[in-house]
């Protein structure tokens, strides 16, 4: 009987992976790693320093592998803190790229992490400094039946 394979939960895997590495990386000490909360959600504002992880696209590469477009937005505390936002973004991006060499993203088999973009992206609502970028992350799907 053929296996039923669904795409992995790429966003949750990326959050779990980056949350774990943030605990052991002094550069990311105190940086929250959170999910797809929009900066315009009522009452929501990311913590003092944060990486917001969002799944912004998904395409099947083969029967078993999907490419998840993961977008990271690194927040610094203030409008003036562009350099810190850049440091957080670049370190989080480096960890994400490492997942390809490790072969797993929070336990999900990961065969490729390809950078797509990276740019200075100040928040239009609060003015806080941010850097954002997207990555194509190839993850194996999950056999559910």
């Amino acid at each position, binding site marked *: 009987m053929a296996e039923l394979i669904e795409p992995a939960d790429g966003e949750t895997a990326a959050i779990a992976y980056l949350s774990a590495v943030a605990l052991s990386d002094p550069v990311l000490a105190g940086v929250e790693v959170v999910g797809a909360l929009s900066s315009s959600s009522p009452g929501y504002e990311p913590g003092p320093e944060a990486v917001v992880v969002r799944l*912004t*696209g998904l395409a099947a590469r083969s029967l078993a592998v999907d490419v998840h477009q993961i977008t990271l937005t690194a927040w610094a505390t203030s409008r003036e803190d562009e350099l810190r936002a850049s440091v957080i973004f670049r370190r989080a991006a480096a960890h994400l790229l490492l997942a390809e060499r490790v072969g797993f993203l929070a336990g999900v088999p990961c065969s490729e992490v390809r950078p797509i973009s990276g740019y200075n992206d100040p928040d239009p609502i609060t003015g806080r400094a941010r850097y954002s970028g997207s990555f194509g992350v190839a993850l194996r799907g999950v056999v559910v039946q």
Partner: protein
Amino acid sequence: MGSKVTRIVFHSAGFRSLMRSQAVVADLARRGEAIAAAAGPGVGSRASVGSNRARVVVMTETDEAKTAEAADKTLTRSIGAGRG
């Protein structure tokens, strides 16, 4: 026993001609329009032919669309509409 070496000679002018062809421009324009439509109002696309290849740019054209992209990544989320 001698080994036979296969040489590949690229026809660069042919590549360039293909990448600048009307068919490629039309395909890129269709993909750009699909992405712009998925991203919502205030996002437009423009296809053009450069010296080596055709290209399409999809961009926010209004303050509202720029804010929507910065807050919610509305254009970034729409890139998938350009596939297929």
